[in-house]
Every structure is written in structure tokens, then in C-alpha cells.
């Protein structure tokens, strides 16, 4: 042991030297636990790194459950919008028609709620004229417009018809109509230029 306090050559006893002390093991354990806790925290509160998820929501699935849900199929809901554009001017948004102007109702109409769309699609494509009995009341249709040239997209016609046949607002619940069904009848009747009358329509089967 060196007793000379002024010696510069030898270090004091107990003075740390480079590499003489190792980091304590518990520090690594603590850091690892903190990192684990941090990751757990991020996982719970990070919203899956989705920029649209804010507290108190935990994930985009959680957020999705609180979004407004539109009832009914997509086709029905698109049909509701198209109906307002093309049909509501005469049949009104309520679908009750306008008896004063000889516009029959669509609500509870046996023509709308028919088992199949055979006659209904023909009416929309070419229009209708002459007397018609709807829901027990007589109307002398002064001519429903033909929509063959105006609405060229068969899917839109299918959407409208699906809406009027299945509208929950009106208490209707029949079957959906597809664009193919409309295309088929459009092709079958492509040579017809005038509106239908009820007598002619009754020759076609309902389905």
C-alpha cells in the first residue's frame, strides 16, 4: 500500500478506474420493465396509430361501432335519393301521389307491391296512360312519363324500384330488383314507343 499522499503515479485506494465498475443488473431489468409498460400503454392508448382515432376511443373498430348506421341495403338507400329526383315531383316524397292531378299513390299500390317486377319495369320504361285502379281508387292517368331515354342506367331504375317496393318508411317489404331484370325488359320492349295501357300490361305475367 502506498502511504505517500503526494504520489502522482499510483491511484488512491478505492478510486474508480475505467472499466472497474459494471452497471447493476437491476437497472437493465427496470429499463426492460419500463419499456414493456410503455409499449403496453401505447398499445392501449395509441389507437393503433390510426390518425382518426382519438380518446376515449381505443381503436378504429371501437370508433366504427359508434358511427351512424343506415338501415336497409345500399341499393334501397341509393334508390331513395334517385326517387326524390325523378319520381317525387309527381308522386310526392311521401309516395302518396296527388289525387287532384290524377297521380296515383305508390304506397300500398298493388302494382308496386306485385310479386314480380314484370309490369312495374314496363310502366317505368314506357310510361302509362288511361284508367288505372290503385289501392281501391280509380285514376284516369293523364300520362305517366316514359323514362327509357331519361334514365339510361338500368341500375338506377332498379334502385328506384327497389326503394318503392321495400321502403321501410312506407311499410313496404317486397323483393329487390336488379339491374339485369331491368335490362332484360328494356331489350324486350325496345321497339315500343308509346305508353302502356292497363289492358296491355295485364297480358304480361306478373312475375
Amino acid at each position, binding site marked *: 500500500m502506498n502511504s505517500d499522499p503526494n504520489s502522482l503515479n499510483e491511484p488512491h485506494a478505492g478510486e474508480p478506474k*475505467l472499466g472497474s465498475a459494471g452497471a447493476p443488473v437491476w437497472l437493465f431489468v427496470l429499463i426492460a420493465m419500463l419499456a414493456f409498460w410503455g409499449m403496453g400503454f401505447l398499445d392501449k392508448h395509441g389507437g393503433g*396509430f390510426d*390518425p*382518426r*382515432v*382519438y*380518446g*376515449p376511443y381505443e381503436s378504429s373498430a371501437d*370508433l366504427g*361501432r*359508434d*358511427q*351512424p*348506421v*343506415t*338501415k*336497409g*341495403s*345500399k*341499393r*334501397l338507400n341509393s334508390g331513395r335519393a334517385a326517387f326524390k329526383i325523378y319520381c317525387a315531383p309527381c308522386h310526392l316524397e311521401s309516395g302518396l301521389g296527388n289525387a287532384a292531378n290524377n297521380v296515383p299513390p305508390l304506397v*300500398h*299500390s*298493388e*302494382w308496386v*307491391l*306485385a*310479386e314480380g317486377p314484370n*309490369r312495374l319495369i314496363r310502366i317505368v320504361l314506357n310510361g302509362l296512360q288511361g284508367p288505372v*285502379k290503385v*289501392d281501391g281508387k280509380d285514376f284516369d292517368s293523364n300520362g305517366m312519363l316514359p323514362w327509357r331515354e331519361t334514365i339510361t342506367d338500368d341500375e338506377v331504375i332498379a334502385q328506384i324500384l327497389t326503394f318503392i317496393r*321495400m321502403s*321501410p318508411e312506407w*311499410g*313496404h*317489404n*317486397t*323483393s*329487390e330488383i336488379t339491374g339485369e331484370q331491368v335490362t332484360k325488359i328494356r331489350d324486350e320492349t325496345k321497339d315500343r314507343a308509346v305508353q302502356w295501357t292497363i289492358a296491355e300490361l*295485364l297480358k304480361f305475367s*306478373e312475375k
Partner: protein
Amino acid sequence: MNHGPLIFVGVFFALALSWFGLVFEPQLQLGNAQQATNVVNTAELYPQRRPGQAQQGLDVYRSLGCASCHSQQVGQTGRRYDVQLIDAGTNRASVIAALPKVVTNLTTVEAEKLLAGPMPQIILKDLPRLAADAIVAKIEPSGAKAEVKVIPTGPDIARGWGKRRSVAEDFLFDQPVMLGSQRIGPDLASVGLWRPSAELLLLHLYDPKILEKKSVMPRYRFLFEKRKIGRAPSPDALKLTGEFAPEPGYEILPTDKAKQLAAYLLSLRTETVLFETPMTVASVTVATNASSVTTNAPSAATTNAPPP
């Protein structure tokens, strides 16, 4: 003893990591943010650019240091589900029969009164989501329409500072974003909603004690001009009474800066319902007609056969 390279690498990674975490990753997340659509009225884009005067007002807001006492971020800590009756339907008797079954302690008389009242009406508050869904499903068969309403909750919302929390979308067109960090005064994220008049805002800027007796906000009188009344009082003049009124024959007029600031404050309205902040209506997901009915429909079609 030469650990220079090691220290360099250590410092480099420490700085690079924080740059990635605090600058790069947020840019990746929010850098492409665009106007969003209101989830209720999908035709409405949000946010809109602030009108020109309000845009200039942002600079006034910034230059006066409003952000050092006012924050612009409303927080939300939870949400609550209420059941709301939207439409009583046509079959009142069945609705009145159905309501007491789901709402405890509701007598038939009260149910009748409820239906006579204005719609929509909240009939049950603070339910678990599943219970709320179940109740709506029980009410609907009676012909009435009910919905589950999502209501954001939290201390800020309870104070009336906003209807929902602030989200990044709200600040899309603001440069710079005046989030603020201290709340010596109230949060202003939705001040255009709870003080919806330029006149009141101008009065508050002229002398905060007019509207809030205990306000500690400084007066911003230099935003106003005292003028001798000419032939007739100006329609823009502040309507001041009592101790705040100028001497007779004079009127107080807001300068352009005051008007810009008021326009900016009025444009602070965070009420649009975005995907991030559902707060109106979550209907119950019911089995839709689409999936169940592909074959012949039984009900109306068979009873209303077309005339022969």
C-alpha cells in the same frame, strides 16, 4: 479513451429517434389530411377555409397574444349513450304500451304526455351501448322510431366549451395553429357557438367586465376608436351603458382589427360531426330487408293482388 465515434452514434440515434417520433411520424399520420365530410349530412365538407376577414383575424389573435391565456382544444374523456325517440309513429296505442316496458317507472299517463311532446326526445340516459341497442330494438316494432345517441362527455364539454372534442381536422387551414397551452380564460375552440354574436364579442374586447364581472382579461380599448357623433350615431357603434359609456356626444367604434378579430372568433365553431367524433346517432344494426328477402314477399303483395 477515444470514444468519439461511439458518442456520435449515440447522440445521432437519440436525435434521429426523437425526430422520427415527433416530426416524421406525425407528418405521415396527418400530413395528408383533407377536408372530411360530415357523417350526418354527407354533402357538407369540413373544415371550410375561414372567410377573408376571419383569416385576417387569426393574425390579430396571434399578435395580441390571445393564445397565451386561451387554449383552443376541447378535450373529451368519455361518452354516454342515450336513447332518443325520434318519431312516435302512427300507432300511438302500441307505442304507449311498449314504452313502460323499457323505461322503468314510466306510467301510461306519462308515456302519453311524452308522445304529445316535441320530438326528438331523450327517453333514457346513460346506458351501456348494448342495453341501448336492445331497448331501441324493443321500441321499434311498435311503429315508433328510436335511435341511440352518442354524447361526448368530459369536464370541458360540461363547461359548455364545445359539443365535442377538438380533432386535427379542425385546424386544417389555420397557419399557425393557435392551440394555446394555458387556460387563464375559457377555451375558445367553439366560442362561435357559445357567444354567437359579433356584437357581444366586441363588447367583451372593449371591456371584459361588461359581460363577465369577474373577468381578469385586459381591456383592448386600442382596438376601438372614440369619435364625436356626427349627424347621426353610427350603426356600428357599441351599445354601451352606465359606467362603460363614453361621455355624451361621443361613440365607440370598432376598428378593422377589432372586426377581424370578432370575425375570427365567430368562425371558431367545432360542431360538425366527423368520423373521428361520432356524437349524433348510431342506429341499431338490424337484419336488413336486403339480406332476408330475395324470394317472394309474403305480406303486402299477397293481400293486394292486382285487379283481374
